[in-house]
């Protein structure tokens, strides 16, 4: 049985100017330990798809159709209180902008421990221990000091590491990574990607990796879904996407990639 199954998902935005079909009949599934890459241009509905899985779409957006199953159980009919149990514990998210995704007036330590304490019956002392461990796992140097630091004192890469520590501290079954490296510079991108792959392998997690960067997909994904205008235009194994693309749009995307000589590639 697949870990996550998205069936014919439809998320529409009801604006004054009319209905915007951000996600219009998207289906895919992720097996345990598998990495699914969701690729597409800006505005193709990748992020809305990810947010729909956790029912985090803001007004005026609404999930109007389809189903989302986690280990065979539908997430859509869940009450808000049951949903909070799944968010952050079974399914975690790393967002695109580490600059704005962390709360500026709470310390890093506070933001990690609160997540642990929201899901586990644990004393603050134990939660802190666990948070420090998570910070070490993502290789945040000097974690004892960083624990009491505010986000604005950290670099972009360090903040993204803190976000990853937060997302992974409870060993989720599924990690949704929504363009986790887009806002970072290239050398840091490579480090963060390597870190994600390493942690994923170690804990046999499933990952839904959202990006517009085909280079990253080639490196880490098992399966790929190509999205455009709220629909999936092609979905296949990663080798097939690169060597044997079917849809015209996928071919166009591949042609648009800047070619880098083999010996200069990362990872």
């Amino acid at each position, binding site marked *: 049985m697949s870990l996550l199954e998205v069936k014919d998902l439809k998320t529409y935005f009801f604006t004054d100017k009319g209905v915007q079909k951000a996600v219009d009949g998207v289906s895919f599934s992720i097996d345990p330990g598998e990495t699914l890459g969701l690729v597409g241009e800006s505005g193709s509905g990748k992020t809305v798809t990810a*947010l729909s899985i*956790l029912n*985090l779409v*803001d007004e005026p957006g609404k999930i109007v159709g389809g189903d989302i199953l986690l280990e065979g159980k539908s997430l859509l009919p869940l009450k*808000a*209180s049951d949903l*909070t*149990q*799944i*968010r*952050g*514990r079974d399914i*975690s*998210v790393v*967002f695109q*902008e580490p600059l*704005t*995704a*962390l*709360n*500026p*007036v*709470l310390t890093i330590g506070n933001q990690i421990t*609160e*997540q642990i304490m*929201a*899901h586990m019956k644990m004393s603050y002392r134990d939660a802190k221990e666990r948070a420090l461990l998570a910070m070490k796992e993502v290789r945040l140097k000097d974690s004892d000091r960083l624990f009491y630091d*505010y986000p*604005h004192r950290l670099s972009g890469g360090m903040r993204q590491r803190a*976000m990853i520590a*937060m997302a992974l501290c409870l060993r989720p079954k599924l990690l949704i990574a929504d363009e986790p490296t887009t806002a970072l510079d290239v050398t840091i991108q490579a480090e963060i990607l390597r870190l994600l792959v390493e942690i994923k392998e170690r804990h046999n997690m499933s990952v839904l990796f959202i990006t517009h960067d085909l280079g990253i997909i080639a490196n880490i994904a098992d399966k790929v879904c190509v999205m455009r205008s709220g629909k999936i235009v092609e979905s296949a194994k990663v080798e097939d996407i690169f060597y044997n693309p079917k849809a015209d749009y996928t071919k166009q995307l591949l042609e648009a990639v800047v070619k880098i000589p083999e010996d200069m590639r990362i990872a």
Partner: protein
Amino acid sequence: MLNFIIRRTLLIVPMLIGISLITFVIAHLAPGDPTSIRYGLNPEVSQSARAKLKEMYGLDKPIIVQFGLWLKRIAMLDFGNSFIDDRPVIHKIAERLPATLLLNIAALFVIYILAIPIGISSAVKANSKYDRVMTIILFAGYATPSFWFALLLIWFFGFNLGWFPISGMRPWYVEYFTFFESIKDLLWRLVLPVATTSLLSLANLSRYMRSSMLEVLRQDYIRTARAKGLSEYLVVYKHALKNALLPIVTIASMILPALLSGSFIIETIFGWPGMGRLGYESIMNYDYPTTMGVVIIATFLTLLGLLIADITYAIVDPRIRYE
């Protein structure tokens, strides 16, 4: 930080001088002078007697010279004597200041206690029926002139219902009360003046709180907090509120001057023996030393309030450090 506090405290001095110069000039430019109010309409007082009086008060010199002399005395913390009863201005103000502080601090307290929850609840339920009704009430409150509102309160609660006393702070019979009774009486008498004083700023601040909260609820870190599986309570009261309160701290610096200047009217209407009424009376009587004294003290309190707001801001927002 210490450096910043010292610098800001020193900055108060030129601001005080500038504000007092403007007030001094305006007060003296107003038609009439102290001699006209007491002797101007009395045919038995000769012009030479008035001239002598003017000379005694130093009013025959050019305004700028008068201001210089006044400034020289102020520099030695001598506020001069009142033209009306010749008592030292500083004593007159010292008598009145506690009543004004009591009224305004009570009002500030009421404003924050009410405005923050109103703002939060309106933002969380934005565009709901509750939010709409609240918006109408607050705008009505914002648009209501406070002197008119004061008269309405006096007429309805003081006169028709007889629930609250309509005037005064400490009646003559208060000395027969026990300590507890006298406090109760004071609180009772505070209700109407505080309600009037709070109205405008309450409307103002809760709208600020609402928009600040709405702004924060749209931020990425709120989505992160939800994605982490925190309860809605934690999302609103821990993650959002702490950020939304930051601008509200500095708005206190806008409320304080409004409250103090409002005191001039409200204290007069409610017969409140505060500095505002003293200022009002001194203006009506061309009592320049008292007017200037009241202005200086009120300005100083306002600037002090601004300084405290800035310091508080640095304490609550970890991103701000004054160097």
